[in-house]
């Protein structure tokens, strides 16, 4: 399965930095899932859980309290 690069970072530290196949985000307008080669896209996130799948070792949940998601050029960045 095609993967893309995912970075989840808060001001002081990186929470996640690596490949992922499918990631589900808690968007402010509803849940959304990003796959590889998604179109360029920016949205805000609300409090919830980010679920990362296919990034090597099964599904991984990362709880967040909101942030901004940017997808561009097969790369997704979450600013917490």
């Amino acid at each position: 399965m095609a993967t893309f690069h995912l970075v989840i970072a808060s001001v002081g530290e990186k929470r996640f930095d690596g490949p992922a196949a499918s990631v589900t985000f808690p968007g402010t307008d509803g849940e959304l899932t990003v796959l590889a080669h998604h179109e360029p896209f920016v949205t805000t996130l609300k409090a919830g859980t980010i679920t990362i799948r296919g990034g090597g070792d099964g599904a991984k949940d990362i709880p967040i309290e909101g942030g901004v998601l940017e997808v561009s050029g097969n790369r997704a960045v979450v600013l917490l």
Partner: protein
Amino acid sequence: MASLKNIKLKIVSYKKTGTVTHAMEAVSAVKMRKSQERALAGRAYAAAALSVLRRLAGTADAERHALVREQLGKTCFVVITSDKGLAGSLNSAVIRRVEDEIRSRALPKNDVVIIAVGRRGGDYFTSRGYEVRVKHENVGDGVSESDIRMVTDKILEWHAAGEIGACSIAYQNFLSTFEQEAGVRQIVPITQEMITEMVKHIRPVKGKYAPAASEEDKGPDVYTIEPDADEVLAVLLPKLLNTAVFHAFLEAKASEHSARMVAMKNATDKAKEMAGDLTRTFNKVRQASITREVSEITSGIEAMK
């Protein structure tokens, strides 16, 4: 002439001082390296936030957001100094820059609000009658998010209430191990230039962590923005403010440690020099007393002949 015993005691005490300052130098060197590494780790975040903002500024009416607009009101200065001294001219340089800035903008005292991070700056501005609204001490070397929030939440609150119009942050910029420079940087209103500058400055100019190749990102020009640009900006701009403050904190920390390292190195050298000088005096005094005794004995013998 001082007695031999007194000189001996002094030599020992200088040597002990030298050992202590040498240890402090080594500790500061390690701490400095850690601060630098942390500053670099946060760089990706700032760069990503910038790239989003840069593109949003193109697509949407970014000027509509309050944090970007010019606004009338008091001027806030965030002054980052160290809690402890023994760091050369580090703190006085920062304080002087802030005073220069206040003077050059001709701001009256009651139009200035100070957020003091670090005891030195807080004490200075309090004693000179400035309005020091927040005093924050004991920022750890790690610089936690709560340390940053202490500052940015206040700025956002006062800005939203219309109390302050602009905010600048003053700190020692870390150029290299032996070179730091006190600087004042505007953080509110947020401008694109300011963030570009900030990302550029996260790496020191020289040394191990100096920039290698250019890390400009080439993203798309057009974005799908949900729900809309205003909402995204409302979330993103405070985050940029956090990032700016976070990096100022880290720069200040790295500068503090390197300034202290240099100051302690000078102290160690000086202690060695003093101990060396005193040892020479010690030898001279000892030789003089031996010569005196010898001449007393010989003259005694001469007298008995």
